[in-house]
Each structure stands twice: as structure tokens, then as C-alpha cells.
């Protein structure tokens, strides 16, 4: 049988199996190999809240989606072209995300009676014709894996854990990828467990060889490298990017980084990553709860560290009182919130954008805090750096909002050099003459930072209202009104120090789609597609939400309609309507998932049709 090779611009594939099937590793390896081969890409891991949900159940399915191509890739893909399903439940859960005519590779061993029952199938979908509109390739992956390892004398548990690499090997063959990258990774990762290295390499190659040898696949695909900007690249998740951005900021500020944090999904990886950067003097403190986490950061900030606290929604709710203290004491502090599904415990492993109003308003009293939002995994690096810059320059807590999708998702990151990053250091106050703790810079309204250890600057700060300049306690009514306004004005002035907003597409037209945060890729893709169809639609993505860039008020009136897609019931739109009195229209789906670009395309069509 001859094998045809088709060249594709972009493909989306999804690995799906039981939580214990190693789908996350499989996906990451495919990603990293594709990245090294020069594709642009975007990924979306998707796993259950339970550590190990009962085997074979729908609730226990873990998936990893990767969208890669030779063109610019902005999202992990709306629908997948290829689905690898390690068992019946994985097939059932993911089928509706597969394009008609798509490829399904199934591990037939995952379709025994028990599997079928757990997945709620009355009969096997492999044999009842229900998959006729797809190209189905049934492979007994488990068996083949066993055979490949027959002579190694491994426990059946270990053998079972290796089968994902058989699937990976087949996919490498199908998409013309080399296995070397993964082989190297195995050698490094399991350096101390040669058996694991050996077995996985064998199985990986067995999968590749099986696809190469056995006559089941008739097509092979070629996805050429993307035309990315020249330079060194690295695949990076949003959480890792935040960690790197913060370390970079500390270095460029000539300060030590201090992180006070309490583990919470999906933010914990930032803590994990930073705890590994001790060679940069990074101090990480796993506190007893979120309140202690932020409190310790406030203490460290008073001492002259670049202080950070990281969390997700329910944790942020606990930090709000202390954020108010940071506002009142005017100490620099970066607060990273990796948003997840709410309210309450909600959907811990799913993504959402519903903490914006909490970040803006969730404190007692008039308590203004700048709010930034990253738009892609690698943008998390730059926005973390930027959050630190603003915190230090303006002596203020700053929120950085990311979300579960950005935090766990990944994309290629053009590695910057230290030299390219701006110096953001600012001398501490040391001169004791005429020192007043709450005297301000004329331009930024920031007070000076005077740290313990500096002779002659001994002073006390706290949560009670401050006397203007002097910083002592004041119950004076006029002073309170003045200070409330000064704190608000300080945050407003940051607008002078951030880039103007740039519209992607024409600067005026029928429709402007405004987004923020992790919906960037989906909106961008949708708008570009509609524009390619000749529609008058543009895209504006807000990375600074408080304060907003100064030109928003000029941009909005240039469009006839404004659409604001958000993964919440309408939060940014509230701010836009209130500030600019525009009758913006919301598009809201709160399903714990990133938008599909086609959903947004549809909504655009709907609105433009009605023009």
C-alpha cells in the first residue's frame, strides 16, 4: 500500500485517555518536538479535578490538545483533526470536538466491556457504525506495548504506563516528526532510572515503526516550519512565564524576589517554579493560608524586596483585606490571580474570566489598585515584568490577571536577552533631611521607599488613614477626602506611563471587538477570518484595565457597534459602559472552556448582518 504525504498549514490533534494514562506528558512531548521543528503552536491541557478519578469513567478523562502549523497559530484549535483515544470514555467525551471526517486512533484494549459500561456505551462504538463519518484506526496499543517490552521483565503496571508512548510514536510517524527530541528528554528526566528510559524509548520507536510498517495509515502529513521571527525559541506555559517575568523584574530592579503563596489550582506552578530559582536569591514561602501569604509579602515589601503573592479566585477572596493594607501603606506588591471557574470552589481546573470585578472592586472602602491582564502564555512574561515595574515605580499593589487556560497552555516564546529588558531599578530613600514618609513625587504621586536599616528614616506606617505627607495617623475629615483622592489620582496617573491601545485592523468601521486576557487568540483568529472575508471588523485587546490606556475614549466612537466577548456574564463590559456610556454588546459563555474562534466569528456575523 502506498502512503501519500499531504502538506497541511495547520492541524489540531488531541490526546485523550484516563487520568493515569499520561496524556499530559504525551501532549507535552508532541508539543516540544513540534516546537523544535519550527511550527508555531498553541496548547490546551484539560484534566479533571480529582487526582485520579475512577478508571475508565467520563469524569476521569484527561486530554491535551495541540494546534500547530506553518502559519501563525493563536489558539489551541476549536475542533481537532486527529483524536487519539486511549479508552471508550476518552472517545465519548471528545468526539463532539472532532471535525467531520477527522481521524480517530483508538486503543482497542480500552474498549472492553468494563470500559464500555464505565463510559455509558450500550454497545461498542467501534463496531456499531456510529463512527462512520470519521476515519477510524483501531490499534491494540496495550498489546503491542506489552509485546515490545516482553523481554524486559517489567511489572504490568509499568508496562501499562508506557503505552502512551506507543501512541506518541504513531503520531510522530503520521506527522513526520523525529523521535530524537523525546529520546533526549527521557534520558535526562529519568537519568536515574535506566529501565524507564529504555522501556519508553523502545515503545516510542515501536509505535513509530508500527505505523511505518503496518498497512493501516494511508496518509502522512507534513506541516512545514512557521515563518516566525528569527531567534531562539522555547515552549512556555503562562505559569512558567509569570515566574520568569518576576525573576527578570527582580534582577532588573536590583532587588530580591520574595513570594508568599499558598498552593491552589491552577496557580501552584508559579510557586513551584519560583522555589527552584534559589540561585537568583528568590525566597519562596509556602504560608499557612492566603492571608499569611500576602501578609508575608507585605512585610517583605516593607523590608525592600520585590514582593509577590500568587493565587486563584477563592484565594484572592481571602487576600482582599490585606490588599487594602498595601493600598494604605503604599507598598509595592504584585498580586497574580490565575482565574478559574467560580463562584466558590466552582470548577477548580477550568478556566474563566470572572474575577475582574473582584480585582477592581473587591475591597472595603475606596481602594484603587491597578489591574493588568496577560493575553497569551508568553505575554504572561511581559505582563508580570510590567506589573512589577508599575508596583515599584508607583509604590502600589498591582493585580495581574491570567487564567487557567493561559497558565497551563503554552506557546513558543521568543527568548529575550537580559539586555533587551529595561532597567527598572529605583534608589531607596536614604537622605534623612526633611524626610516625610508620605511625601510624593510630583509626577507619579508615588511616595518614596525608605527601608529599615536606613539611619534617620525611622518611621511607622499602618492601615489607619494617613496624614498627607507626614504619614502619621489623621482623623481629620478634609485630610481623609484629600488622601482618598490622592490615592485614586496616583493610580490614574499610571495611564501616562503605559502604551496607547492599538486596534488590530482598521481604526474605524462597523464593529470593534474588545477583549481582555486569554481570549486574545480566539478573538484575533475570528476577526482576521472575518476581515479576510471583507468584513469591517477590528479587534482591540486590553492589557491594562485599570487605568485604561488614554485613547480608548477616542477609539470607541469610531465604530458603529462594539462587541465584548468574555468568559463571564459581562465584567469588562460593565466598565466600558460605565466609563464611556457606549451601548456595547456582550457575548458571554461561561462553560469553563476557552472560546472557539468560530463561536466569535458567528457572533460577529450576527452583528454585522444586523447593521
Amino acid at each position, binding site marked *: 500500500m502506498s502512503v501519500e504525504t499531504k502538506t497541511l498549514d495547520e492541524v489540531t490533534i488531541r490526546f485523550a485517555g484516563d487520568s493515569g494514562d499520561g496524556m499530559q506528558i504525551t501532549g507535552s512531548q508532541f508539543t*516540544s518536538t513540534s516546537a523544535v521543528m519550527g511550527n508555531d503552536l498553541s496548547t490546551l491541557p484539560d484534566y479533571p479535578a480529582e487526582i485520579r478519578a475512577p478508571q475508565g469513567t467520563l469524569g476521569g478523562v484527561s486530554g491535551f490538545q495541540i494546534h500547530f502549523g506553518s502559519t501563525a497559530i493563536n489558539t489551541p484549535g476549536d475542533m481537532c483533526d486527529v483524536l487519539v483515544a486511549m479508552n471508550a470514555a476518552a472517545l465519548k467525551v471528545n468526539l463532539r470536538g472532532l471535525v467531520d471526517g477527522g481521524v480517530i486512533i483508538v486503543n482497542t484494549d480500552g474498549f472492553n466491556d468494563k470500559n464500555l459500561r464505565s463510559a455509558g456505551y450500550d454497545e461498542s462504538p467501534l463496531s456499531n457504525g456510529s463512527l462512520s463519518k470519521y476515519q477510524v484506526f483501531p490499534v491494540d496499543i496495550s498489546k503491542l506495548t506489552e509485546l515490545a517490552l516482553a523481554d524486559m521483565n517489567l511489572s504490568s503496571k509499568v508496562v501499562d504506563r508506557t503505552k502512551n508512548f506507543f501512541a506518541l510514536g504513531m503520531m510522530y510517524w503520521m506527522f513526520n516528526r523525529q523521535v530524537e527530541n523525546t529520546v533526549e*528528554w527521557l534520558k535526562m528526566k529519568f537519568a536515574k532510572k535506566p529501565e524507564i528510559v529504555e522501556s519508553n524509548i523502545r515503545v516510542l520507536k515501536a509505535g513509530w515503526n508500527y505505523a511505518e510498517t503496518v498497512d493501516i495509515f494511508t496518509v502522512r502529513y507534513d506541516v512545514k*516550519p512557521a515563518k516566525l*521571527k*528569527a531567534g*531562539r*525559541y*522555547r515552549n512556555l506555559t503562562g505559569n512558567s512565564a509569570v515566574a*520568569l517575568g518576576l*525573576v*527578570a523584574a527582580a*534582577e532588573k*530592579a*536590583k*532587588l530580591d524576589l520574595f513570594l*508568599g503563596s499558598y498552593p491552589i489550582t491552577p496557580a501552584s506552578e508559579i510557586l513551584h517554579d519560583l522555589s527552584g*530559582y*534559589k*540561585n*537568583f*536569591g528568590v*525566597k519562596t*514561602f509556602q*504560608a499557612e*493560608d492566603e*492571608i*499569611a501569604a500576602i501578609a*508575608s509579602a*507585605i*512585610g*517583605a515589601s516593607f*523590608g*525592600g*524586596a*520585590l*514582593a509577590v503573592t500568587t493565587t486563584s479566585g477563592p484565594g484572592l477572596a481571602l487576600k482582599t483585606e*490585606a490588599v*487594602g*493594607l498595601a493600598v494604605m*501603606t503604599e507598598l509595592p506588591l504584585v498580586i497574580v490571580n490565575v482565574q478559574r471557574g467560580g463562584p466558590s470552589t466552582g470548577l477548580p481546573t477550568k478556566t474563566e474570566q470572572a474575577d475582574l470585578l473582584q480585582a477592581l472592586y473587591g475591597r472595603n472602602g475606596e481602594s484603587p489598585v491597578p489591574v493588568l491582564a496577560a493575553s497569551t502564555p508568553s505575554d504572561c512574561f511581559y505582563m508580570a515584568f510590567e506589573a512589577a515595574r508599575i508596583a515599584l515605580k508607583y509604590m502600589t499593589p498591582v493585580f495581574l490577571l491570567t487564567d487557567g487556560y493561559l497558565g497551563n497552555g503554552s506557546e513558543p516564546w521568543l527568548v*529575550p*536577552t*537580559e539586555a533587551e*529588558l529595561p532597567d527598572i*531599578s529605583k*534608589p*531607596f530613600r*536614604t537622605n534623612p533631611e526633611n524626610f516625610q514618609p508620605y511625601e510624593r513625587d510630583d509626577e507619579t504621586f508615588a511616595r518614596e521607599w525608605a527601608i*529599615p*536599616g*536606613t*539611619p534617620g528614616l*525611622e*518611621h*511607622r*506606617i*499602618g*492601615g*489607619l488613614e494617613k496624614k498627607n505627607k507626614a504619614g502619621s*495617623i489623621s482623623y481629620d475629615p478634609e485630610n481623609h477626602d484629600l488622601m482618598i483622592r490622592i490615592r485614586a489620582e496616583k493610580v490614574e496617573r499610571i495611564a501616562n506611563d503605559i502604551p496607547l491601545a492599538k486596534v488590530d485592523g482598521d481604526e474605524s468601521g462597523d464593529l470593534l471587538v474588545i477583549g481582555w486576557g486569554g481570549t486574545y487568540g480566539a478573538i484575533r483568529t475570528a476577526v482576521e477570518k472575518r476581515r479576510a472575508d471583507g468584513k469591517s471588523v477590528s479587534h482591540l485587546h486590553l492589557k491594562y484595565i485599570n487605568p485604561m490606556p488614554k485613547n480608548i475614549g477616542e477609539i470607541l466612537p469610531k465604530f458603529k457597534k462594539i462587541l465584548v466577548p468574555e468568559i463571564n456574564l459581562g465584567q469588562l463590559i460593565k466598565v466600558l459602559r460605565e466609563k464611556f456610556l457606549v451601548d456595547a454588546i456582550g457575548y458571554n459563555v461561561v462553560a469553563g472552556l476557552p472560546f472557539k474562534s468560530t463561536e466569535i466569528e458567528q457572533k460577529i456575523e450576527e452583528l454585522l448582518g444586523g447593521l
Partner: protein
Amino acid sequence: MGKLVDDVVTQAEHASVKYVAKDFASDQEVRWCPGCGDYSILAQMQRIMPDMNIPREKIVFVSGIGCSSRFPYYMNTYGIHSIHGRATAIASGLKMARPDLMVWVITGDGDGLSIGGNHMIHLMRRNVDLNVVMFNNQIYGLTKGQYSPTSEFGKVTKSTPQGSIDYPFNPAALALGSSCAFVARTLDREPKHLQYVLKRAAEFKGTSYVEVYQNCNVFNDGAFFQFTEKETKDDSVVYLEHGKPLVFGKNKDKGIKLDGFSPVVVSLTDGMHSINDLLIHNEKDSTLAFIMANMTYNAALPRPVGIFQAIERPTYDGEMSKQIDATISKRGRGSLDKLFASGDTWMIQ
């Protein structure tokens, strides 16, 4: 500690370290009620400070909210008057970031044991090198007189018109149960003892916890008079002194001995017992410390005051710095360029 901080710290010409007490008085007007026990604690703190031989700018007082928590304003050092219950956590972060500083925490029985109880017990087990002074007036002063977690069972207050039904914490026992390294108790009205204990706490490396019985003359006047007033105090208080037998009474005529694990009072004059029968205090024995702490609410026994336990062990902030120093000396100070380019990377031409 970051280059900029290092610069400040190393370039600082530290003020001459020959201080007198009033060098530690800030320019802020002291605003406690006249007669409040807090005044004495402030005075003793200012008095011991010159003996510490630490430049004023290297000292920080961190407090929460409550009458007691106003304390930092009155000390001419660095200070944070923070939010209710969080001083221990804030001070922990400060000390981790800046192990070169001497950091004190000032808190109350509400601030430190009610809302702030969790941070307190975690601080104790971690053993961050802080000195905690807990002003125990057995009442919420600042909010005008509700009962606190140390108020006695049955206490009638604004929020318990028929008497409280909460059993009080025994702060020393709680501290020992939390593995606190240094646990002590003293009294606002015993200035010398208060000074002694504060000094010992300051010198101790690790978390030092000092409970001070403090009279709130507005909302809980006389709560500790039995232990502080001339008529009763000698017979009601036993001072714990390392290596010494537990003797008390106006004429040093009574002592404490153990009956099984239970301390009992014996007379030294009835011919039945001599000083040799008495329990000898030992700051290094944590079981003994617990037995002493458990005497606290036993009306048949004198109230134990002094240092229950002082057992040093490595501090959290010290271990944290150690891990960092070891990493840097082993792997060298990190380079951003290397960090950015670590992991799987690839070149696009």
C-alpha cells in the same frame, strides 16, 4: 538581600549605639487611657533597648489592631501598625526578607489569639526569629469590652450578658503545644521582671513568645490584681527560675512539688517538706514546661510566671538563607540569559 538593599545596609553609617531609654520614644503622643498597663510595657521596652546594642534603624516593631497594637507608633524605630491578627505573618515575611533586622511583634489576646491564632501557632512551629509580646488583658479593649479567648469562663461582658461559655486558652500551653522555642509570662506591674523577660526574649534566637498580664483599667480593671497587688501577690505567684526550686509565699515559706504528674503546694515550715522536695525549674525540659503551664488556671496553685521554656533550634529564616547561600555558592549567582534559554529551545533563522 538584593543589590539595592545591600547598598543601603552596608553603606549605612549606623547611629552610635550608645542610647538611653528616651532615644526610643517617638514624637507621637501616647494615646492609651490613663492608668492602662500598656504604659509600663512601653516604658520597660524603651528601657531595655539601649542594652541591646542594636542601631535603632535595625529594629522594627510590627503590630496588628487593638489598643496594644498602637505600640509601634511610640517606639522611635521602624514600625508597622497592620491589620487585625496578621502581625505575625507580616513580621515573618519581613524577617525572611531581612534577616539582618531585629523584629518584634506586638499583639493582644484578641489580635494574637483570636483572629490571629493560626499565624501565631504556625510562626511558633516554624521558629522564625521574632520576638512576640502578647498583651493579655483578657478583654477586647479597643472595641470596648467584649470577652476575649483568654477571658475566664462565665465572664459577663457586652457580648456575653449572661457570662461567657468559652473555656479560655492557656496561652503558654498553646505555645508549647505548637512547639514554640521560647515561652514566657510576665506582668505589667513587675517592671524588673518584665525587663528581664523582654531581654531574654530579645537575646533568644528563634520565636520568643512573651505573654504579659496587662491591666485594662477601663474594661477589665483588676483582672490580675491578685498577682500584682501587695496584699496577695506573694502568695499567688510562683516565679520560675532556671535551676531553682519552686518557692513562693510572702516569707518564701511555700513550694511546689510533684504528686505523680500533678503539682501541689507544700509548706516549708510545717516540718513535712524541705526545699529538697521541691520541683526544680528547667527551661530545657518541655514536659516540665507543660506541667508548669498547666498550673495556670488551677485555683489551688500559684500562678506560674517566668520563662517556661527556652530551647534553641535552627530558625526558619536562617534555614531559608542557608539554602539560598548554598545554592549560589554551588551553582553561582543565576544569569537571566541562561535562565531564559534553559529547557528545550530551538532556533528560527
